[in-house]
């Protein structure tokens, strides 16, 4: 066997996100008819970061690289170049422009050397769907037990919770309202069907 060079970057066009084929044959809700707009946003890379939140050096090391701090308040996210969601007291999900995750991971790893942490590229394992419009809260209420009332769930907040029979990470992006929900890949089609059904009726 001959050793071959691997300079070849995978062609991003060859990507197929979790709903690629579902969207081919199915209409998605849009605000014109339903008061809700659904947009599949596959263009993010994801890193799952875990580490000790009480370790100042760890936090600083991360901040240095990201340009902003890890959200320390439970169920919030911070956004700058990238978005970082609080998942648990020692766990965060970083989302960034698709393709940049490797580079960021590399830099973070460099900065974090010597720390106790875990950094796992989970790109492709989930899919983000953006829901916006006046009916979004009403649609979500059909399957989400969280209180999404604007008095309670505010811009900048996120939560891991359930949507019908699957789990999701939900975040309020703006007051339109615009919600981003992040779904596990293999459940995405179920969730999309559920959203389609719940918007229709």
């Amino acid at each position, binding site marked *: 066997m001959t050793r071959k060079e691997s300079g070849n970057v995978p062609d991003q066009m060859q990507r197929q996100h979790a709903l690629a084929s579902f969207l081919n044959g199915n209409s998605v809700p849009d605000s014109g008819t339903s008061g809700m707009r659904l947009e599949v946003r596959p263009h993010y890379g994801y890193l799952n970061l875990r580490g000790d939140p009480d370790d100042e050096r760890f936090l600083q090391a991360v901040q240095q690289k990201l340009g902003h701090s890890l959200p320390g308040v*439970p*169920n919030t996210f911070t956004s700058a170049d990238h978005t970082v969601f609080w*998942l*648990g*007291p020692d*766990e965060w999900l970083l989302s960034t422009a698709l393709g940049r995750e490797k580079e960021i991971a590399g830099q973070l790893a460099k900065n974090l050397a010597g720390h106790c942490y875990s950094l796992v590229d989970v790109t492709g394992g989930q899919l983000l769907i953006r829901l916006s419009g006046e009916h979004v809260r009403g649609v979500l209420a059909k399957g989400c*037990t*969280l209180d999404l009332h604007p008095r309670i769930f505010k811009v900048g907040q996120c*939560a*891991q*919770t*359930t949507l019908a029979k699957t*789990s999701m990470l939900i975040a309020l992006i703006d007051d339109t309202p615009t919600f981003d929900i992040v779904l596990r890949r293999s459940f995405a089609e179920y969730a999309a069907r559920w959203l389609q059904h719940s918007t229709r009726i």
Partner: protein
Amino acid sequence: MLLINCPWCGPRDESEFGYGGEADIARPANPDALTDEEWADYLFMRKNPRGLHREQWVHEHGCRRWFVLERDTVTYEITDAT
């Protein structure tokens, strides 16, 4: 449907949680040193009280943290969460 206060995420529906049974059962430090009876006691015997119960829950669909709370097994009232 219980409303359970996750120490991290706040009050959430029971359906987001997993139940882990009686709390404070420490795994014996040296299992090999135990008699079969002592091992069975650790494995299977439970207080199963009618009344206050310290029990473990995990916020399965949330932050995935385990925590302990005290709940009355008759009224289901949650009296304390840690």
